[in-house]
């Protein structure tokens, strides 16, 4: 079987699995967030933390919960890293430097998982498990909670209550993330991933030379790294490392874990607003854009134009033999489309066009299909904008799912949409204005160097976390600006989305009239897809032209 045919079979298998789980798993997700019944273990948890699960919250209280929980998570994660020598399983690794600890704490709490450190030599197993693994779970559960709060804003009528943040957080963790992670972790060990509490194993090679292979509790973190669209590897090479991703089968499992929740959440949304077709059209938009970008990236990686790549004969720099080009491109498309920073191949070494597509996949605002929860609320905000634009064109009051979109709603949606581009362009602009910083940081020059900087701010502002990893980001300038990019990229949209949810829930639902725009058909899909592409194209075309597009046309 040729690599292309095998790759096409793999794409079909991916589609088959996603289609098969879409309805049952989407329905289950809707049930998780709408059921009145608490599991016994959940009731015990609520008693222990003294939270009344029966109390519903206004959007302001819900937002205070999100912010308070995230802020304290940052503090705890910072302290764990700074106090590393006092913890077990530290293997003599020192306290993490303040600037690295600051950046890493923000990075994992915001579901970005940008990594400015070498995990094997920086972090012991205690910080990995009690610090990073925990945030891999809860940052994902927070994303789902915010998305569900927005869906309730559409689904409810004439109330100021959006649900209880603590209940949503606990249910997302206990009913969705934890059971899937546990089962997938065992499966991943079966496929060859390591799950060890030792620091490493000393071996004497066939040539008599001694070396130490780094080990780690990888499998348990790897699965939630993917399922929660986090992306921070327990090894520096991330999913390129054979201990994290031993073969083509584990590769498929990992990017399936990435896609399953974001895709199925569109179904949960449709079910919760009483019409599954409303969700299907969003899933279709995500799928069509993703599929188109996939084919461009795949073509680019199999038709390289770089002088070094042509001299080598194929675009295999930064790719593993056991995975090859199609599997690597599929993985890269799944992770850049979902705000998962995981990589199984080095994006910095992709062709100009291939790397540019991965960058664009993030710059679309992480909606193809986006991170767990974040993807759903981002595309719903874009749908609101699309309805508004359509309303402007024909001159009628825009409404979506029976809710009128007035000044308050459009303002909130606009803030949510514009936060990311503002952070990307201001951040990258500030970095480019610092020649001293750039000289020290860039690994490539010319257009590819510009792409490295643009990719860094796109990745952090979108809470993706993958990198054109040649860029050295350890200076205080990069640590702090990239840290702030992650904070603003995460919490400005979350606050805007929760405000939007509050204002929508307060409205009484209006029945659709003859003048209402139907929002469940192909026409609306084209409108939303057009909005996604238009917003990104208008904002980022100049920057992309100087970076990846210039390199692709060389």
């Amino acid at each position, binding site marked *: 079987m040729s690599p292309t045919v095998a790759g096409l079979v*793999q794409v079909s298998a991916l589609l088959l699995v996603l289609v098969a789980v879409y309805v049952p798993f989407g329905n289950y997700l809707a049930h998780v967030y709408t059921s009145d019944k608490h599991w016994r273990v959940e009731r015990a948890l609520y008693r222990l933390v003294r939270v009344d699960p029966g109390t519903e919250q206004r959007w302001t209280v819900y937002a205070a*919960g999100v912010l308070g929980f995230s802020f304290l998570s940052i503090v705890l994660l910072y302290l764990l890293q700074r106090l590393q020598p006092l913890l077990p399983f530290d293997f003599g690794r020192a306290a993490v430097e303040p600037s690295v600890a600051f950046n890493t704490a923000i990075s994992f709490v915001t579901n970005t998982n940008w990594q400015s450190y070498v995990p094997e030599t920086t972090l012991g197993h205690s910080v990995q498990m009690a610090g990073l693994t925990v945030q891999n779970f809860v940052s994902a559960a927070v994303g789902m909670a915010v998305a569900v709060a927005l869906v309730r804003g559409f689904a409810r009528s004439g109330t100021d209550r959006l649900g209880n943040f603590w209940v949503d957080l606990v249910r997302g963790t206990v009913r969705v993330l934890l059971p899937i992670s546990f089962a997938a972790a065992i499966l991943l060990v079966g496929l060859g991933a390591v799950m060890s509490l030792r620091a490493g194993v000393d071996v004497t090679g066939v040539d008599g030379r001694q070396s130490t292979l*780094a080990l780690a509790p990888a499998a348990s973190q790897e699965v939630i790294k993917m399922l929660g669209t986090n992306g921070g590897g327990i090894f520096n090479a991330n999913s390129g*490392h054979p201990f994290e991703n031993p073969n083509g089968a584990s590769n498929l499992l990992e990017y399936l874990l990435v896609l399953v929740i974001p895709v199925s959440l569109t179904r949960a949304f449709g079910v919760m607003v009483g019409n599954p077709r409303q969700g299907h059209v969003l899933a279709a938009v995500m799928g069509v854009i993703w599929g188109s970008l996939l084919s461009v990236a795949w073509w680019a990686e199999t038709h390289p134009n770089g002088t070094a790549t042509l001299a080598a004969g194929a675009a295999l720099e930064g790719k593993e033999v*056991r995975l090859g080009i199609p599997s690597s491109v599929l993985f890269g498309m799944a992770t850049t489309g979902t705000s998962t920073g995981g990589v199984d191949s080095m994006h*910095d070494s992709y062709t100009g066009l291939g790397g540019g597509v991965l960058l664009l996949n993030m710059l679309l605002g992480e909606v193809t299909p986006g991170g767990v929860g974040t993807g759903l609320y981002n595309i719903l905000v874009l749908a609101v904008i699309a309805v508004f634009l359509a309303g402007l064109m024909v001159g009628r009051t825009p409404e979506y799912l029976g809710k009128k979109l007035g000044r308050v709603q459009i303002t909130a949606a606009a803030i949510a949409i514009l936060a990311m581009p503002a952070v990307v362009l201001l951040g990258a602009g500030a970095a480019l204005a610092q020649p001293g910083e750039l000289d020290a940081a860039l690994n*490539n020059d010319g257009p590819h160097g510009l792409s490295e900087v643009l990719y860094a701010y796109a990745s952090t502002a979108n809470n993706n976390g993958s990198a054109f990893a*040649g860029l050295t980001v350890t200076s205080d300038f990069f640590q702090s600006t990239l840290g702030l990019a992650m904070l603003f990229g995460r919490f400005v949209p979350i606050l805007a989305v929760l405000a939007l949810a509050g204002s929508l829930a307060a409205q009484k639902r209006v029945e659709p009239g003859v003048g209402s725009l139907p929002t469940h058909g192909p026409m609306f899909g084209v409108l939303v897809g057009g909005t996604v592409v238009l917003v990104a194209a208008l904002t980022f075309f100049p920057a992309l032209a100087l970076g990846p597009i210039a390199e692709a046309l060389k």
Partner: protein
Amino acid sequence: MLSLLTRQAAAAVRVLILLTLVLGVAYPLAVWGVSRIPGLHHRAEGSVLTVDGRPAGSSLIGIDPVPADPAADPFFHTRPSATAEDPLGIGPADPSVSGGSNKGGFSETLLGAVEQRRALIAAREGVDAARVPADAVTASASGLDPNISPAYAALQVPRVARVTGLSEADVARLVAQHTDGRPLGFLGEPGVNVPELNLAVHAAASMMRP
């Protein structure tokens, strides 16, 4: 407003501590516990290969072996590694870290490295430079790629046979035995497992000698 924040923050502290115990201690230790069962244990601890009971490497980690005498090199070689000390990436990788070169396709440094690697490998195998495949002259993502393409393995068979004294057919048979196909027939790409292959060649060669 302030009391609202304080109340939520107090709840946040309690939830965070509890979830840290459940997700950060109980969950990874439970997965670790299950991974102790036979069949999983070997993989969980790094798929370590042993020779006479001593750890001799891992099936999953490629570290390029160094011949005692470069003129009589009995080893199959892995791909170049960005973690190797040598700037060309030829020579043993450092398995306590991992990573790629992150060089772009138009990088002059990468172009130079590719050309030098091609010349070195062609000279080592005594073949025309055009026959050296792409994976042999590019560094992997991890720097620890245990696999090479079947083409790169085939290129090394005559030299390994000559130096070890095994017949080319025997060496080619060992290569075939240690070639992993695509899982399920369509996932990933076929590759030859270098750490396992070198141990097998070494064992076969030792058996031949009296």
